[in-house]
């Protein structure tokens, strides 16, 4: 992620299709390498974070058209399409690429429905909902592949944890001063938090060096991303103090 320059305007805009291409390449690589890395599968964890960032950017693109409380709905909806495609594919034993293609198509179809039937009038609706569905499908496919057994037990948690990680960066940063870079840094923080949670669940389910590795790699990613995010917060916030009263009223 090339979010180096902090600044009030947040620097140049990263286009969502570029983020999507990066997240698809790294995400698919992570899914296919899962079978070859064995115990060292945790080194693939950073490859899945771009998919979180791409999805969060998708939510941001859609919700910045003034959806407000609809931000949660966008997260729900996009992840639901992605999750449904992956779960169906896994139960039917499909190839991951087919699952992700189904998610992409499903996202586009729901986008078309929102645009043409519900008439939401958001120009990027079809593109972003397809991106959101495909990116979340990649995330869920990868995370589900980490677990050796009882994966169906984790389906609800996989769906809802990815939903929150994807919708929260924009929802949590909403406001007049929101900008893409800070939101995407926050997305990185929450991506690593989510992979850490699944590392912890794996540790409880089948303790192994792999699960400890997932938690460690996620903690490292968390430390890096939270520094980047907090640096931007410090640059952009009006002021910070331990306590006090707002001057306007007193």
């Amino acid at each position, binding site marked *: 992620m090339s979010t180096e320059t902090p600044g009030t305007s947040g620097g140049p805009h990263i286009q969502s299709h570029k983020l999507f291409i990066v997240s698809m390449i790294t995400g698919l690589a992570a899914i296919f390498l899962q079978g070859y890395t064995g115990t060292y599968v945790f080194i693939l964890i950073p490859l899945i974070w771009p998919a979180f960032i791409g999805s969060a950017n998708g939510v941001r693109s859609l919700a910045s058209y003034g959806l407000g409380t609809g931000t949660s709905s966008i997260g729900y909806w996009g992840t639901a399409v992605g999750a449904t495609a992956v779960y169906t594919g896994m139960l039917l034993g499909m190839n991951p690429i087919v699952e992700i293609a189904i998610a992409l198509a499903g996202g586009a179809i729901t986008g078309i429905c929102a645009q043409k039937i519900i008439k939401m009038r958001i120009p990027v609706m079809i593109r972003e909902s397809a991106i959101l569905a495909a990116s979340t499908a990649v995330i869920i496919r990868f995370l589900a592949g980490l677990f050796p057994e009882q994966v169906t037990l984790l389906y609800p948690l996989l769906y809802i944890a990815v939903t929150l990680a994807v919708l929260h960066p924009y929802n949590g940063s909403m406001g007049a001063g929101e900008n893409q870079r800070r939101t995407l840094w926050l997305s990185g923080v929450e991506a690593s938090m989510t992979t850490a*949670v699944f590392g912890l*669940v794996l540790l409880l389910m089948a303790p192994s060096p792999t699960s400890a590795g997932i938690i460690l790699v996620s903690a490292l990613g968390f430390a890096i991303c939270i520094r980047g995010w907090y640096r931007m917060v410090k640059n952009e916030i*009006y002021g910070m103090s331990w306590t*006090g009263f707002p001057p306007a009223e007193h």
Partner: protein
Amino acid sequence: MFQILLLGSALAGLLAFLAGIFENEDSDAGSASNPNSQVQLAPQIEHLHRYYNKAIAGEPPQNALWAALAATVAYILYTRIGLDPVPGVILGAVVGALITAILQGMYGSLAHISRIASMKNFKQMLYWDCLLSPLPLSMAYTFLTALCLTLLSFVIHGLLGSPFPVPLIAMFLGFTLGAIASSTGDVHYGAERLYQHYKFGSGIAISKQGDIDVKGEYGYRNSVDTPYFTLRFGGPVTGLTFGLLIFIDALSRISGSVWTSVILEFLIIALILIVIIFLEKYTRNRYGPFEEGK
């Protein structure tokens, strides 16, 4: 069989009632509820506030995550530890709820700081004590909510014989509870005492929107006082709604037949609907007048 179902219904009703209270208080401690939009609006109309702006997501998705995470962890621990069902489930639920509370605290802090940073144009300061005072309170309520919902899922799965896996039941309970707390609990946020001098049902002018986040009885309002107030009415009302929903649903299974249960529930829903319609008509006639909508 009958006794197990009866015990299950009673336990489910009790746990649902408690979960309802705790969830409503959690949302009020973190202003994730009705005044969330007002916390967001307040600085824009020069009402600079000292509220904890938790803003994780809508109440349904966040509660679904808390419940699903706690229940998944509890189920895994329960099956791995090999204790007896009751201590195994309780121990698992406590550990699951603890992990959930920590995750909630992290999400909430990130949202608060990031949202305040986005309010630069309106000169909203970040006061650390406004985050750190209500944070443990909100986390504690999330712990209790997740604990109750996890135990409730085990009761529904075990005693009431639901065929669905525990984490799935927990996720749906989380969605349901979030929706109920968001619609029932948030009405009783304390707005009624702030706006008593307005004509009943007249709505609140945009220029007054942020008042709820700023003006307390004495000094500034904050996210610790709010649950103190809402615990007297908003919490129990939410608990009653969710508790009754779960209890009536559970009790309708006692007949043993699926279709009798469906018909019973349908009758109860029809009865509640009729009572509500008459209550609303009575209230409008008694405390109106309302202007005709155009």
